[in-house]
């Protein structure tokens, strides 16, 4: 384990194992007990993908139910109201707590963060492995609840419904699972913060960090500060449910609105845990595929920090109709607009980066461009919700559902982009560019078809979490469901493209896209200890040193970035 006392002199000079990390050892045990951040990252990626599929299946079940308006009147429906309520709960809980929150940081952050720093591993590799197993355990518990009276509270677990006597006993499992997932998240965050502080290459100043690391760093700060609040809240929930001690349930002398405050005190910052890493990846991809220095590095870096901090003081905007006082509503509405500014800054900076660039429309860039569109809509519709008078009308309708899917699925789009971007580095193979592009286009079309109609039906009054609904909304629901099937098709193509590349893909060059950040200056895939030599830190967004070499189908550094010895 790297130590904190000697950050400046990691042992690059000693002889290193030059085999790539995939081939350094074999067998399941070599993976399950690995301390290598790259393997842990890959295991996260596999786990998160599997859970994403499961969450997606629940979503398709929900959308299929909603093809029909009067489900409640149907005789013996295949999917009953009880089942439907469980489906949307599981969909939400899986996607939020198990997929998106760990998604980019734990899977891709783990893989690239130490390499971007020129380090051999994260600061605490054992803690890193532990946090992976916490993720596994939390996930397993949450899924086990399926067999013990599946939870139907929605991912928000609002009291008193969630703690009333008849709430399913699966609640305890799900909530314990979320509690443990929280620990996993805190451990990862701590690890990343310490790593960024202690294991940077000499000469790699804060303002020479790739912006992805600023984003991961800000995310980690939120993870560490906000997650414990969720932990305590979930613990209180379990205590209330099992011992009938009154915190949130008025039947035992508690206050249900208090729960909402606690919950959103975590869950609003959590939406930035989800989006900030995506914004970080965006800054990498946009700059690399425009072959142009990122525009306004400092504004982007500080806006990550600003978002992280402002994110803590706006939680009450989820509670404008909860019975919270008018004064509180007013304050929270005003504060909410403060987060909108740094988000807008980033979008303008990405566009300015593209201006007069040399733009290559390869798959990662396509996903990045889709993100600008998707996040544009997601962020702008946030304004309707931050404004008091309009939110009263829109709250808890499909408008909100559409809003948060636009932002959160924005993150998923960037996650996909990031997977394609780092795929050659992770597995040493190129995927098929055409298949990748087709999948991304299908996903983009399907996504918009699914969620644009939801804005309209929502503002027309369609409430969320409805199993049956008035017939006037059916057109929109049908469009939306069709969109979800298109997305499913896109996912299949993407899965096919990536899987087949592992066997049939062309061998990846070290630097296929022409990035100057350190992970592209080592082999694809990287050796066990990341570099066969000592990496030299430089401005990660300066591309003058790189030129296209058709022979290797990749970029070559004119001046070497890794010195031997």
């Amino acid at each position, binding site marked *: 384990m790297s130590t904190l006392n000697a950050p400046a002199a990691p042992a690059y000079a000693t002889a290193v194992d030059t085999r790539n990390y995939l081939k350094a050892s074999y067998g399941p045990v070599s993976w399950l007990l690995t301390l290598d951040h790259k393997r842990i990252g890959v295991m996260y990626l596999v786990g998160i993908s599997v859970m994403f599929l499961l969450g997606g299946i629940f979503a398709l079940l929900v959308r299929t139910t909603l093809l029909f308006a009067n489900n409640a009147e149907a005789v013996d429906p295949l999917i009953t109201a009880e089942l439907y309520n469980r489906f949307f709960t599981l969909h939400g809980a899986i996607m939020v707590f198990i997929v998106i929150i760990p998604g980019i940081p734990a899977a891709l952050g783990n893989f690239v963060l130490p390499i971007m720093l020129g380090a051999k591993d994260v600061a605490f590799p054992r803690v890193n492995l532990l946090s992976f197993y916490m993720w596994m355990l939390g996930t397993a518990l949450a899924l086990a609840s399926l067999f013990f009276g599946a939870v139907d509270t929605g991912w928000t677990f609002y009291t008193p419904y969630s703690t009333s006597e008849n709430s399913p006993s699966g609640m305890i499992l799900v909530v314990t699972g979320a509690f443990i997932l929280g620990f996993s998240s805190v451990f990862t965050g701590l690890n990343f913060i310490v790593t960024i502080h202690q294991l940077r290459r000499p000469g790699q100043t804060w303002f020479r960090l790739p912006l992805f690391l600023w984003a991961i760093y800000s995310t980690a700060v939120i993870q560490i500060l906000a997650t414990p609040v969720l932990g305590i809240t979930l613990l209180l929930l379990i205590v209330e449910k099992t011992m009938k001690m009154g915190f949130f349930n008025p039947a035992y002398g508690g206050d249900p609105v208090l729960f909402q405050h606690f919950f959103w005190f975590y869950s609003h910052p959590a939406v930035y845990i989800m989006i900030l890493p995506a914004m970080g990846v965006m800054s990498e991809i946009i700059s690399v595929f425009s*072959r142009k220095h990122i525009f306004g590095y400092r504004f982007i870096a500080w806006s990550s920090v600003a978002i992280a901090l402002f994110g803590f003081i706006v939680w009450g905007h989820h509670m404008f109709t909860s019975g919270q006082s008018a004064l509180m509503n007013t304050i929270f509405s005003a504060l909410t607009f403060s987060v909108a500014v740094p988000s807008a800054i980033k979008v303008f900076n990405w566009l300015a980066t593209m201006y007069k660039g040399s733009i290559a429309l390869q798959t990662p860039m396509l996903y990045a461009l889709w993100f600008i569109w998707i996040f544009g809509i997601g962020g702008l519709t946030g304004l309707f919700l931050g404004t008091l*008078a309009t939110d009263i009308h829109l709250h808890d309708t499909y408008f909100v559902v559409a809003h948060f899917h636009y932002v959160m699925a924005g993150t998923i789009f960037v996650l996909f982009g990031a997977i394609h971007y780092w795929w050659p580095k992770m597995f040493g193979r190129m995927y098929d560019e055409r298949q990748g592009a087709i999948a991304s286009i299908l996903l983009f079309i399907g996504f918009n078809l699914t969620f644009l109609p939801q804005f309209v039906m929502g503002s027309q009054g369609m409430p969320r979490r409805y199993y049956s609904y008035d017939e006037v909304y059916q057109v929109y629901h049908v469009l939306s469901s069709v969109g979800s099937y298109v997305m499913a098709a896109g996912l299949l193509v993407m899965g096919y493209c990536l899987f087949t590349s592992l066997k049939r893909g062309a061998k990846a060059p070290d630097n296929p896209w022409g990035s100057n950040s350190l992970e592209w200056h080592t082999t694809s895939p990287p050796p066990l200890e990341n570099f066969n030599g000592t990496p030299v830190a430089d401005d990660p967004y300066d591309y003058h040193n790189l030129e296209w070499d058709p022979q290797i189908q990749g970029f070559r550094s004119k001046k070497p970035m890794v010195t031997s010895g």
Partner: protein
Amino acid sequence: MSRAFTTLAQFDGTFMMPKQGSTVSASVDSLFYFIFVICAVFFALIVGLMVWFMVVYRRTPQRMDPTSNVTHNTRLELLWSVFPSLLLVLMFVWGFRVFVDMRVPPEDAYVINVNAQQWSWAFTYPNGTETEDLTVPAGVPIKLVMQSADVLHSLYIPNFRVKQDVVPGRYTMVWFEAPEPTPENKPHRLFCTEYCGKDHSNMNRNVIVLPKEDFPEWLENADPLIGMTPEHYQEYVADPQAFITAHPEYVGLMPPAVMGERLYTKKGCVSCHTVDGKANTGPTFQGIWGRTEELADGSSVKVDENYVRESILNPGAKLVKGYGNVMTPYQGRIKDREIDMLIAYLRTLASK
């Protein structure tokens, strides 16, 4: 399904907003469309630039390198931070002002009490009348004082643009004024928008706006049992048919079993108890009268007046085997006369 497609235009509001039914609807809509226009302009700007750059600055073998290498421009960046902020301030202030109008009821508002429970609404008027649909006079400010018997609910009337959570353990309040009476077949819709369990999506009713002058008469006749003297009530129970014929002034009065059947729906029994023998959240009412129920504690009980009364007011006291203690007690939310009517109805469901 084809019916649904022809109803596309049926919102009879505007593209993004439903019909305007209250005095605040128009101001909410103006604000909504103001934000909409700003968003549309920004979105067009962002996507426009994006597409333009994609096309014009596309990488080709001839054009491998960028044609500019600016890395920042502090003035420009400050400009695009500050200018949108000004628009945001405007949005906030406007939103706040309309919100104040929505939030502060006029002093003289007409008060209706609202009881929400899983999964029904009950609206109680000053004279004690209780209804399941909300009926209000046009042009009069209405204040709803709301409470919940169990979990969170939320009262939402899209056409009025109002929404307020109903929270157990405290009162919440919402007010509105509907200027226009609703046409016969086109009431406003009222939804529960805070997820409240299995039948959340069935917790929706209509809002009927009557001309101001018709409202008092409606209210007087809405519940024939209200204001019936004890003597009249005795006569009615003793021989309903004769009493109804003799007293046409009790508009809408029907035999107890019929009144009870209506209460079965209105009070929300229907969401957990079937009358066709199927098991649901609670035991079926088919053949319930005189049946012997096996209880969770191993004893048993014959279904009679006292058992029914106790099961309504304090359902947990005697739990039928195989069912959870999930029914919300009706203590304080049902009148004795209503229990009488329900009993009369259950009698008609006696086992054959």
